[in-house]
């Protein structure tokens, strides 16, 4: 057991997986000598060599396309997209190829691969280093999309993703990289893909979130408990697709009130599906409105401090929304 931050956990877990299975390789821009711009593969080159620590050309479509080919031929590539904002050139390879190879071949082919992408804002990354992308890929059957937010979940889910027989998009909120620390068991373990997790138990209302917002929600829930004596249950979605409806609905049926918090542009965001699911399946268990807290519908997060601050949902805003819903 050791306390680690998120990026360290990713580094160590990848290292263990590379040690355990020599068909696992990491690939991407600057993953070699540079050890990744976030240092997730620091020292990998010396330990595992050029073939298994592959510095790719600056071309995301082929990073994913090459990984597909490697997976088709018996390797288990873990591809790093330097910033999630730069995964878009690979949209076709992910949607038309990775997600469909098993289906279109009637189960004859499979592509066990992981695509890692640091996403999310609040890091002064401006329009192209702050984006949330889970809504785009959550809508792609054949693709698994995970968003672990704690070091424990990151280790367990990364191991599970590497062992998954299908392609997994592994999203890491880059602001949590060094901000979020936690206890991580030294021995390997798996956290299942497709299972949400109640990160804080409560009775008065259910708050569904993931990524950085999970932590903001937990903080706001703590504040609400201390200052207002309101007990909020916080559900960590953890997997965007396939979505774990049961855990969410169970909590909502228990508390009777629900809100969803996400950083991405609000409209047509992942929160829409979660709210819609609750509305369809638990509306008559609700004794309050369904509430969404999300980023504004502007193209992306600006660079200037005041503008970036304006974009990001924050603890105060979430706390206020929780309070209002609780008092409804």
């Amino acid at each position, binding site marked *: 057991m050791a306390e680690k931050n998120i990026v360290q956990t990713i580094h160590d877990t990848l290292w263990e997986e590379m040690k355990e299975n020599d068909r696992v390789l990491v690939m991407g821009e600057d993953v070699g000598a540079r050890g990744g711009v976030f240092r997730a593969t620091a020292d990998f080159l010396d330990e595992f060599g050029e073939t298994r620590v592959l510095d790719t050309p600056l071309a995301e479509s082929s990073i994913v396309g090459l990984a597909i080919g490697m997976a088709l031929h018996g390797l288990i590539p873990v591809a790093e997209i330097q910033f999630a904002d730069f995964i878009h050139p690979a949209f076709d390879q992910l949607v038309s190829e990775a997600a469909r190879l098993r289906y279109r*071949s009637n189960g004859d082919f499979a592509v066990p691969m992981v695509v890692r992408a640091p996403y999310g804002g609040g890091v002064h990354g401006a329009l192209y280093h702050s984006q949330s992308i889970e809504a785009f890929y959550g809508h792609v059957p054949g693709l698994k999309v995970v968003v672990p937010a704690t070091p424990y979940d990151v280790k367990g889910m990364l191991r599970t993703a590497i062992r998954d027989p299908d392609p997994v998009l592994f999203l890491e909120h880059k602001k949590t990289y060094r901000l979020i620390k936690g206890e991580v068991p030294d021995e390997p373990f798996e956290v299942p893909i497709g299972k949400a997790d109640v990160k804080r138990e409560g009775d008065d209302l259910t708050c569904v979130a993931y990524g950085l917002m999970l932590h903001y929600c937990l903080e706001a829930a703590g504040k609400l408990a201390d200052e207002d004596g309101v007990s909020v249950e916080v559900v960590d979605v953890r997997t965007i697709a396939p979505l774990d409806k049961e855990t969410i609905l169970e909590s909502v049926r228990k508390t009777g009130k629900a809100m969803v918090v996400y950083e991405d542009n609000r409209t047509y965001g992942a929160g829409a599906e979660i709210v819609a699911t609750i509305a369809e399946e638990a509306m008559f268990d609700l004794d309050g409105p369904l509430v969404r807290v999300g980023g504004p519908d502007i193209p992306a997060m600006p660079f200037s401090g005041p503008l970036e601050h304006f974009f990001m949902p924050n603890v105060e805003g979430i706390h206020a929304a929780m309070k209002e819903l609780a008092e409804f």
Partner: protein
Amino acid sequence: MATRVKQKRPTDRHSRLGLTEDDLMAMYRTMVTARLCDEQQFRLNRQGKAPFVVPVSGHEGCQVGTAWPLIKGTDIFVPYYRDLAVCLVAGMTAKDIFLGVFAKADDPSSGGRQMPAHWGHRRLGIISGSSPIATQMPHASGIAYAMKYLGQEAIVGCWFGDGATSEGDWHEALNFAGIHDLPIVFVCENNLYAISVPLSKQMGIKDVSVRGEAYGFPGVSVDGNDVLACYEVMQEAVDRARSGGGPTLIECKTYRFFPHTSDDDDRTYRTREEVEEAKKKDPIPAFANYLKQAGIIDDDKVETLREELKAEIDKEVDEAWNAADPEPESALRHVFAEED
């Protein structure tokens, strides 16, 4: 610099290439089989029995010639939809093809899920292809990288059309292969059109092969109507790839005799004269002539062989036609791995 392979025209070319008379006959049978399957699938389309078909006619020479040097069970085929004859070489049967044409449950490519001519067959080493043009190219380079990674003496053959060369994926795949000297051969079946778009609107150059140099490996153009010439350049490229010499870009100058697909009307963009001119260079009679001059077959043999093959194909078409459709609910299967 791209080189254009000149062929002398003696009748012992095959022996020089190490091909026996049996090899030649097997190649010829495959070319004729492809042509007959094509004629048959268009007949079925007109009869309303096949809603959508993709022709191969005109490409049989370059497909059989370039697919032949690959070692089955070891090498990997990454074809595109036009490659019916490549898939025959890889081991598909006429029945396999028509199971796809009729979208039957036993269609080996996709169980009727994909359009016909979207080939795939794991056991035969044919990678499942999709419709989006050129997406298979990075897969091919990735497979070649994996072969090197695993220390295999295997190579990848990757086929595509002239239109495919314009996609970003095409560039990215060749660039990566060049950086790592991968065991792969890129084969362009340049039939001068991407549906209706002529080569002059597809690229500012005449020969796709000049692009090899842009990626640091050889590029070569060859007469796609000459199956032996295609075999020769491919064999050289395959040997180079297998021995660690890296990739080759081969451009086969060919022509599509039929419309792009059964949905296309090529009279809007090609004159009948142009098509008739091209048909005079039909790779099948050209190869038959070589075989005759080499004394391997005569006109009767050509006829009887054709009849033989046609009868066999008709039988397989019937079997395919009578095979079962997929179950509706089976549409829900294979989104992800199934627990067993």
